[in-house]
Structures are given as C-alpha cells and as structure tokens.
C-alpha cells in the first residue's frame, strides 16, 4: 500500500481549515440532495453546478 501524504495544519491556518470545511459542507449538502432532493437552492447557493438527477 502506497503511503499517504501527511498534511499537518494548525487550527489557526485559516486557509487550510476553510478549504476542508467547505469540502465537508459541500459534500454534506450533495449527499442530502442525492438522497432527498429537497435542498436544490442550497446546492445552487453553494455554487455547485449540478444537473438535478431526480
């Protein structure tokens, strides 16, 4: 198994924290959209370009 790149960041590294927090929030919104489809406005407001599959 290939070794993963290890990235250690401090909580005060705002850029890195914002990067991961945005990804997590976007993925959470997308997962909800895929399961229920009831948050299309949230998806749009996050700037996620998504063709509504439902």
């Amino acid at each position, binding site marked *: *198994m*290939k*070794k*993963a*790149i*290890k*990235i*250690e*960041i*401090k*909580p005060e*590294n705002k*850029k*890195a*924290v914002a*990067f*991961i927090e*945005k*990804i*997590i929030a*976007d*993925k959470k919104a*997308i*997962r909800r959209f*895929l399961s229920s489809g009831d948050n299309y406005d949230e998806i749009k407001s996050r*700037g*996620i*370009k*998504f063709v509504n*599959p*439902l």
Partner: protein
Amino acid sequence: MTKSNQEESNSSIPYKIEIVFENSFRFTTSQDVNYKLSFYPFNSIIGFVNNQIPCFSFDFEPDKKTNSKNARIGKTIISLIIDFFKNNDAVLFYLCNPDGKQHVRNYLFNKWYDSNNGDNFFIKEDAILTIDETNRYYFSIIFRKDSKNAKVIIESFKSSINELVDKP
C-alpha cells in the same frame, strides 16, 4: 458468519448493478442490504486539482448496517469506479465521511482498492489532513492511469497541498 455467507462474501463476482439515474447506481447484497453509489460533479476542488480537468466525487451508503468483510461489496464498488473511468477522463475526489470512523473507512477502501487491483486501472494519491486529534480527514484523488492529464493532475495536487501546509 454462516458457511454459506462466508462462501458468498468470498465470491469474486460483483453484485448485479442497477442504474438509478445517470451516474447513480444501486446493488443489493445477498444479506439484503441495499447500497447506493453516486458519482457527481464536484467543483469544490477545482483549483486544488486543476481548473481545466473535470472533477467528480462519489459517495456510497448502505441502507442498513452490514458486514464490511463481505469482499463482494468492495469488488462491486471498485468495478463501478472502473466503469466510471471508462467514460470519463476526470479526477475523482474521495473523502472518507468524517463521522469519527473515517480511519476505518479509509482502511477498508484501501483494502478494496488493493485487493481488486485498482493499481492496474487508475492512480490513487492519498492524503491525510490533520488539524488536531479529533479533526483528521482522509482524502484521495483518483484518475485513469492512461489519463492524458496525469502529470498535470499530480503536479497540481502536490503543489496545492504545499500551499495548504503551515508556513514557518
């Protein structure tokens, strides 16, 4: 696990896959667990990987708790990823759902990838981002081994990681 379940989970055949809609699939294990897997455009990492390359992500979820040792589940999921790359020269971003069990998910996904010869089909670059003990994120980018963008993808992934790390 009963003998028949063990035989079943050791089988090298992926489960029968049903298309729910474009880029979204479902399969049912012999223990009657329904898995849904979806690929979707994921522009949140554009810039992190490269502005010119299509970025997707994917998630899969069972509808109930299941036996993660069932090798057919991993085989089916990896076969769906292989199929995805047959039609897309894209970057696939995978983040282990950070619910406190992400290290287990990461281990399991890597095991599936290795035991199904993922290396024969695509390149997977893994990263672990740690903020503190409770905030640790496992993510990967995956792309076709023969991607015309392979070099650019790796270079921009690594340089973006360098941008993220703490500067002295």
